[in-house]
């Protein structure tokens, strides 16, 4: 990729990575089409509410400690709380003093613009909270009316002794909300990361909510390195040093591609691009690559052996009990193919894998490694779709395939499978299947789920599904043109 740090806006994933939101086919076809560049997006003539890029962008920068985000938008867009930030900070015994302030745009603002008010609000927020950086975000409305937030940002950045940064969150720009991850990363790369002064024994770790922070800190300590978790609980000061780290790793390829590739391109910080540390093969491959990059291969082998000794016997004992289970997966593309691999490792048959979007190459121009790996190892050619979180397509698939389990990781998704009488496992936490320990817990969770279906059957008995019989009789992709 060629990073353009002179522009505050980031090209969308559709333009940069050829990402798509509509596809139906199978694993071999998807990978082949990705390789030869023939993959085409299929639009929909009916869609359901999903998500927009602003949530990902704002959520990321607002996770940084002690900053302010001024969101120039009507009051629906700006509906966030900082409670989560507080809770995450409390967990590691630190404080979080980040503030998110909306501009509550009204009708006259859409006619006359409101940059003066934005400026006033920035002054007020700076005085009140003394933030370490200020982000000013745009929205659909400011985009349509042509509000020039960059001009205010430039002016205030000059005036203040802290960085003032534009983040362009016009939701209509991209169908792919993960474009928001890139927007946040771009802002960090452009304004907060400084050129390296000295190398540090740190590995940048991009994740979401760092639930396994203690475990990872302990594992990394065995390699003599410290993880720098991003962005929850990070500080502006810490971010300025990202260029000095030994490597960048990420818990989700969709989440990390921009930052990882950007740090590599700009400062030569290697980006670990293996399959993800989910399941056993992923954990091994990921840690081995880290070991290779930082020159700690023997330590990594010792670490892996220790984990295997601890957890593998129990994993092997329980694995046969999963035999014969079937599954449908509906997740973001950073997880669908990784979870599919893990399920196969455990002997569960994946009958359909849906990803919400698909980046047919990452920012290094390669097919995502998880897909590549899956094509080489999958015992069967998996049916796939790119489903843009379209619930009606997923429910149609569930009804048709009637799997034992539905695996999902987006809020509000599990209940719909249950209403169709199918047990659901919510793989929400990004570390749920992390390594051998996570794999063992995952197996236990799956077994508990399929062995007590009371909640599911009780609810399914008493509820009606939201779709017409007509819809369940159709092919799941007929609304794609």
């Amino acid at each position, binding site marked *: 990729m060629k990073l353009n740090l002179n522009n505050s806006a980031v090209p969308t994933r559709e333009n940069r990575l050829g990402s798509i939101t509509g596809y139906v086919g199978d694993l071999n076809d998807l990978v082949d089409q990705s390789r030869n560049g023939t993959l085409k997006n299929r639009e929909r*003539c*009916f*869609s*359901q*509410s*999903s*998500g*927009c*890029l*602003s*949530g990902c962008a704002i959520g990321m920068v607002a996770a940084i400690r002690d900053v302010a985000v001024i969101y*120039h*938008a*009507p*009051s*629906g*867009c*700006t*509906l966030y*709380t900082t*409670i989560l930030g507080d809770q995450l900070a409390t967990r590691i015994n630190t404080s979080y003093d980040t503030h998110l*302030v*909306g*501009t*509550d*745009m*009204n*009708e*006259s*603002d*859409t006619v006359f613009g*409101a940059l003066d*008010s934005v400026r006033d*609000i920035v002054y007020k*927020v700076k005085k*009140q909270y003394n933030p370490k950086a200020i982000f000013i975000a745009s929205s*659909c*409305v400011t*985009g*349509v*009316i042509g509000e020039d937030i960059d001009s205010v940002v430039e002016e205030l950045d000059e005036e203040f002794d802290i960085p003032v940064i534009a983040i362009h969150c016009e*939701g*209509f720009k991209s*169908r792919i*909300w993960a474009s928001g991850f890139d927007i946040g990363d771009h802002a960090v790369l452009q304004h907060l990361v400084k050129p390296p002064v000295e190398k540090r024994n740190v590995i940048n770790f991009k994740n979401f909510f760092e639930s396994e922070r203690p475990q990872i800190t302990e594992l990394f300590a065995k390699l003599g390195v410290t993880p720098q978790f991003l962005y929850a609980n990070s500080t502006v000061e810490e971010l300025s040093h990202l260029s000095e780290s030994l490597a960048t790793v990420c818990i989700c390829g969709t989440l990390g591609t921009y930052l990882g590739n950007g740090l590599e391109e700009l400062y030569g910080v290697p980006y670990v691009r293996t399959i993800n540390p989910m399941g056993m093969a992923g954990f091994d491959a990921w840690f081995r690559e880290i070991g290779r990059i930082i020159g700690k291969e023997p330590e990594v082998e010792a670490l892996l052996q220790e984990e295997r000794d601890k957890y593998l016997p129990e994993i092997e004992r329980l694995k046969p009990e999963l035999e014969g289970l079937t599954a449908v997966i509906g997740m973001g593309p950073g997880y669908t193919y990784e979870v599919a691999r893990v399920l196969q490792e455990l002997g569960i048959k994946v009958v359909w894998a849906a990803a919400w979007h698909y980046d047919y190459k990452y920012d290094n121009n390669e097919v995502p490694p998880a897909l590549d790996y899956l094509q080489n190892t999958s015992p069967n050619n998996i049916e796939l779709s790119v489903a843009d979180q379209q*619930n*009606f397509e997923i429910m149609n698939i569930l009804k048709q395939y009637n799997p034992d389990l539905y695996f999902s990781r987006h*809020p*509000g*998704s599990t*209940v*719909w499978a249950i209403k169709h009488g199918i047990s659901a496992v919510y793989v929400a936490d990004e570390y749920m299947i992390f390594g051998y320990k996570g794999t063992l817990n995952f197996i236990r969770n799956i077994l508990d789920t399929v062995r007590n279906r009371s909640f599911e059957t009780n609810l399914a008995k008493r*509820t*009606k599904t*939201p*779709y*017409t019989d*007509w*819809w369940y009789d159709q092919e799941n992709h007929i*609304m794609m043109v």
Partner: protein
Amino acid sequence: MANSLDQQRYKCAMGAMQTVQAIEGAIPILHSGPGCAQKIGGGSGSSGKFSPNIFPCTSVSEKEVVFGGAEKLATTIDNALKIIDAELFVVLTGCTSELIGDDVEEVVKRFKGAEKPVVYVNTPGFKGNNFEGHGWVLQAIFDQYLPPAGVVPKQKGLVNIFSGIPQQDPFWYGNLRELEKLIASLGFEPNTIFGYGRGLESLNKIPAAEFNIVVSPWAGVDATKFLGTKYDTPVLHYPVLPIGAFETTKFLQAVGEFTGLDPEFVTSVTDEYEREFYYFIERYSDLFLEMRILSKRFTVIADAQYALAFTKFLVNDMGMFPNTQFITDRTPVQFQPLIAEEFKKLNYDIEADVQFLTDGYDIHQIIRGEEFGGFPLIIGSSWDKKFAAELSANFVNLANPLIERLVVNSSLVGYSGGLQLIEHIYSAGLARLVL
């Protein structure tokens, strides 16, 4: 003039998709960006027969911004009618579709003869917040879905009741059920449209009602008055959500007067309620009087409904004293004097100062400058938790956003609601000091 919205406690007008969703069988169709519903349609309890994941949405993209989105809306409605098993479809417009000037009315008219009714409401986020949007959605449904006057015969004793905003008011469900019980105890048949077992059947009964009651300082008032005009039925706008004995008795008396009931009958009803209420107060009054961690002073940071309701209860029933009260719902200017006036009608000529503010920082600054004569009581939203700790206050989270606790169907209204509120307040005190 943009408004500094720090610690926001409402959302935009299209948040009224939750008003639609609270009517069983109805579903919103969003002519908006793909992410709007995820942000403003969620929260605990927002999954039901439908949820934001199910709401049809035109997912306005760059293409529609440039070329218009009317046709995309038409195909979305057309397919929604085929795919979604709903009884009423309510099209809501978002900011983008309004700014690009799509003629939604024209598109919706094309579905006039459709198998299921389709209505529409303009709810762009820049036009108002969800307190206003709630009223717009109701009025649009009353206007476009309900038949004209004279079609449905009147039913004696049937009373339409409207109160808190679904989901925005965390206690909307329980409160509405409790208001039904109170009205029923005066011998009426209550008719409400939100929640379990109501839905379109109740909606269809609206024109038959003899009376309309809206218990709300301002939200939904215009929509209820619209009903009164459309069906030529009287409307009682009662601005105070009644909590506890004093206010609930007053409320029932007002309803009695409005409907022409015999005052003695009303008194016989309220007397019984009050005796039961005071059975409990008597048993726990030593606790209330002797809780050393709680001073007599309180502040509420909430929408107009709860700021007013809690103030009335705490002063008139519990004998506490109001510091400045804060109303955070962006109450329209024309309603502000009426509401401020209500804060002056308290026992012993007590008057409470009230401020209409939406910036949480400014609110906290004012409170920091006030005297509480000990440990204050602060009733507010999740935003106020950290702040209350700073003041060593007793904090009760009852206002939206209410993120760290769950409310399913409990109620804060009426005689029983007063006792519920007491449980919340004194539990907060006990959690800090059991002396």
